[in-house]
C-alpha cells in the first residue's frame, strides 16, 4: 500500500522525550471548536455515508455465539434494505474464536474480518500466548488484528518491552493489518497518549486505536485529536501514513461527524477513507442510518424501524 513502509529499516524505539508536550486545556478547547462546526444538507449526507463506510461493526462480548456473529455479518451485508446506494461498512470485528464464523459469513463481500488478539482486553498474557493467538486469528481468515499494548509496562516506563511486543505481533500478523490499541483510558495523561502513539507507529502499527471499549473513558475527541497529531508528526518524519481508529463510546451520528471534521482539519484529504480511518462501534450504524433516512424524508426516525443485530 505504501512504498515507504517496505523500506523501513529494523524498527527502533524512538526517543520519547522528544515527542512534543501536550497541554490538556488547549486540547479540550480545540476539540470543542470542532464541535461548533455546523454540517448541513449535502455535506451532512456525504458525511453520514462516509461514517458508515468507516465502521468496524463490533461484537466483543463473553456471551457471543456463532449465531450472533452471523447476524452481525448479515447486518453488515444488508445495512438497511429500504435504502439503496449505501456504502458497506469497513469490517466486522470479533474475538479470535469467531473469526472463522465471520469469514464464512462475509465471504467475498469485501468487508474485512478484524479480530482482537493478544489477551484482549487486558493484555495480561505472555508474549508466546499473544503471538499464537495472533497467528491463529490470521490463519482462520482475519484481515486485520486489533492488539492491545501492555499498559502496565508502559506506565512503569518499560517502553522497550511494549515496543518489542508490538514488533513481534506485527511480524506474526504477516499480511494482516495491525491495529494497536493504546487503551487511552488507562494511560492517564495526554502526554502518555502522544508518546504511546509514537511508540506504536515506530514499532510498525498500521493503525493506532484508542480503546478496547471495556474501560471508561473510551474514545474521546481529545484523545483522538492527540493521536491524529501524532500520526501527522510521524508522517512528516517518515513519509509513512498510519491509520486511526477511535473505538468505544461513539454511538451517535452527530458525534461521528464531529470526528470527521476533526480528521479533515488535522490530517486532510489523504486520510478521509476507510483505508485510514475507522470507527469501532456497535450501535453507531443504526443511528447513522436513522439520520440518513431523516435527511431523505424530513421526518425524525424511530429505532423500531431499524434492525438491531
Amino acid at each position, binding site marked *: 500500500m505504501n512504498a515507504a513502509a517496505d523500506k523501513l529499516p529494523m524498527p527502533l524505539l524512538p526517543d520519547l522525550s522528544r515527542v512534543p508536550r*501536550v497541554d490538556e486545556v488547549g486540547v479540550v478547547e480545540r476539540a470543542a471548536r470542532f464541535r461548533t462546526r455546523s*454540517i448541513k444538507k449535502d455535506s451532512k449526507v456525504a458525511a453520514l455515508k462516509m461514517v458508515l463506510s468507516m465502521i468496524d461493526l463490533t461484537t466483543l462480548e463473553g456471551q457471543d455465539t456463532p449465531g450472533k456473529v452471523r447476524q452481525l455479518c448479515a447486518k453488515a451485508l444488508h445495512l438497511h434494505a429500504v435504502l439503496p446506494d449505501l456504502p458497506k461498512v469497513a469490517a466486522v470485528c470479533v474475538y479470535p474464536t469467531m473469526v472463522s464464523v465471520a469469514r464464512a459469513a462475509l465471504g467475498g463481500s469485501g468487508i474485512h474480518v478484524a479480530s482482537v488478539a493478544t489477551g484482549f482486553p487486558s493484555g495480561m498474557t505472555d508474549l508466546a500466548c499473544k503471538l499464537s493467538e495472533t497467528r491463529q486469528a490470521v490463519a482462520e481468515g482475519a484481515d486485520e488484528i486489533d492488539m492491545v499494548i501492555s499498559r502496565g509496562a508502559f506506565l512503569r516506563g518499560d517502553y522497550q518491552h511494549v515496543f518489542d511486543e508490538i514488533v513481534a505481533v506485527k511480524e506474526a500478523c504477516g499480511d494482516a493489518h495491525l491495529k494497536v490499541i493504546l487503551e487511552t483510558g488507562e494511560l492517564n495523561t495526554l502526554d502518555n497518549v502522544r508518546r504511546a502513539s509514537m511508540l506504536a507507529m515506530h514499532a510498525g502499527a498500521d493503525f493506532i486505536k484508542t480503546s478496547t471499549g471495556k474501560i471508561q473513558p473510551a474514545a474521546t475527541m481529545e484523545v483522538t485529536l492527540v493521536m491524529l497529531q501524532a500520526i501527522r508528526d510521524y508522517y512528516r518524519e517518515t513519509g509513512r501514513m498510519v491509520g486511526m481508529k477511535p473505538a468505544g463510546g461513539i454511538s451517535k451520528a452527530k458525534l461521528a461527524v464531529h470526528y470527521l471534521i476533526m480528521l479533515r482539519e488535522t490530517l486532510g484529504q489523504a486520510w478521509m477513507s476507510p483505508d485510514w480511518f475507522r470507527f469501532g462501534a456497535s450501535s453507531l450504524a443504526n443511528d447513522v442510518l436513522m439520520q440518513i433516512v431523516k435527511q431523505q424524508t424530513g421526518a425524525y426516525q424511530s429505532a423500531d424501524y431499524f434492525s438491531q443485530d
Partner: protein
Amino acid sequence: MSNKDQDSRLEFNTDWTYSPAPESTDHVRILDRYGLFIGGEFVEPDSGKYFATINPASEDKLSELAEANPADVDRAVKAARQAYRKHWSKLSAATRGKYIYRIARILQERAREFAVVESMDGGKPIRESRDVDVPLAAAHFFYYAGWADKADYAFPGRTARPVGVAGQIIPWNFPLLMAAWKVAPALACGNTVVLKPAETTPLTAMLLAEVIQEAQLPPGVVNIVTGAGATGAAIVDHPDIDKIAFTGSTEVGRIIQKALAGTQTRYTLELGGKAANIIFEDAALDQAVEGIVNGIFFNQGHVCCAGSRLLVQESVADDVLARLKDRMETLIVGDPLDKNTDIGAINSKMQLEKINEYLEIGQQEGAAMHQSSCPVPDKGYWCRPTVFTGVAQSNRIVQEEIFGPVLAVQTFRTVDEAVAKANNTPYGLSGGIWTDKGAKIFKVSNQVRAGVVWANTFNKFDPGAPFGGYKESGIGREGGLHGLKPYLQLA
C-alpha cells in the same frame, strides 16, 4: 518533524467540504433609522443629520443613525446629570445592582439577536459573536451588578462614592462587549453614563438602549449618542462630565489626554498594542499553534491585545511554522453569518486599505509573505490570514499596530533575547508565553512590560480579570475589582 516536510505535505482542500450553514436573520429587527437615546427615549438629533451603517460583508446599508452634535451631547449630559442627582445616586446600592442584573438577564434572553446584529454590522464571525462577545457582555453586567453593594469591601478603610457622569467612547472591534465593559462598572458604582459607540458599528448599542428601556432603568441613567470623531470630541470637551473612559487608538488617546489636561476630569484610556507571543522550545507545540491562531486571527486581528508578533525559539521555529501553515489552511474566511466561518469581514473599507498598505510595506521591507489559499467572496472587505517571516525588529510591520490578520514572525535563541525583543516597543498591553516549564512562566511574566500576560493560552477575557496597558497602551484597568476604582471616589 521537518525532515520530509516537502514530500509529506497535507492536503486540506478536501473532497468533502462544509455546505453553507448561515445563521438565520428572520428573528432580527433592525429599524431603518435610529435616533439618539437620551433621557430614556429615542429622540431626533438637533443636528438633523443621519449617517449610514453598512454590512462590511455585503456593502449593503443596514440602517441610519443620528449624528450627535455638541448640542445633542449637551442634552445627553444634562439628562445624565439629572438622572444622577434625582434617581441613581438616591437608590440603595443593592437596588442599583438589581437593575444591572436585569440588563444581564435580558441580554442572555436576547443573546441570539445580539449576536446576529453584531455580525451583520461589524463583520465578525457569528461563532465569535455568539460564543464570545454576547455571553461575555452579559457576564460583565452580571459580575458588576454584584459589586454594586460591595464596593466598600474592595477598598478597605475607604468609603466609596460615585464620581458622577461618565462619558464613554468605544471602538468598533467589540461593539457590545466594550459597551458592557464601560457601562456595567459605571452603573454599579452609582454613576450615570453618556456612551458613544463607533460610527461603523452602532447597532448593538441601539439594541442595548432597548434593553435598558426593558429593564426599566430610570430615564437618563444611560444615554447613547451616535456619531464619529466630532461627537467623541464633544463628549471629551463637555465641562459637566466627571470621567472619560476611552478605548481606541493611541493617537486619539493622546489627543484626549491633552484635551483633559488642567481639568478635574478623570480618565482611563485603553489604547493600541503590538503584543509578542513567545514560544519556547519546550512548549506544547500544537496548542501553541492554536494560541498563535487565536492570538492573531481572532476577530480578523481587530484586537488591541492581539498577538501580532510571534517570537519563536530558533530550535523549533521551522517546526512551528510548518504546523502554523497547516492550521491556517483550515481557516475559513467568508460570510460572517455562516456558522463555520473562522475569519469574517474586515470591519470597514478604510481598515482594509490600511491593512493592505501594511502588506505592501512588509514586502517592500524584504519580509516573506505567506497567505492561506482559501477563497474569499467577491463583494465585501476581506483579508486572508497572513504571516510574514524574515522580519527585522526595525521593520514597520513589527513596530506598528496593523489591526488585521497579519502576523510578523521573529526568532530568538535565549530567554533574555525573547524578553528584550518583546519589550522593545512603545506599547505594553499584552503578551503570551508558551512553555511547559512553570518557573519560566513566572520569570518571563515578571519581565514582560505589559498589563496582561497569558501563559499557555491567549486572548482570554473574563469580567473578573483586570485588563489594561502599560506605556502607550493606556492608563487604568477595566474588569475585576480594579475596574471599580476609576468609577469611584474613595474618601
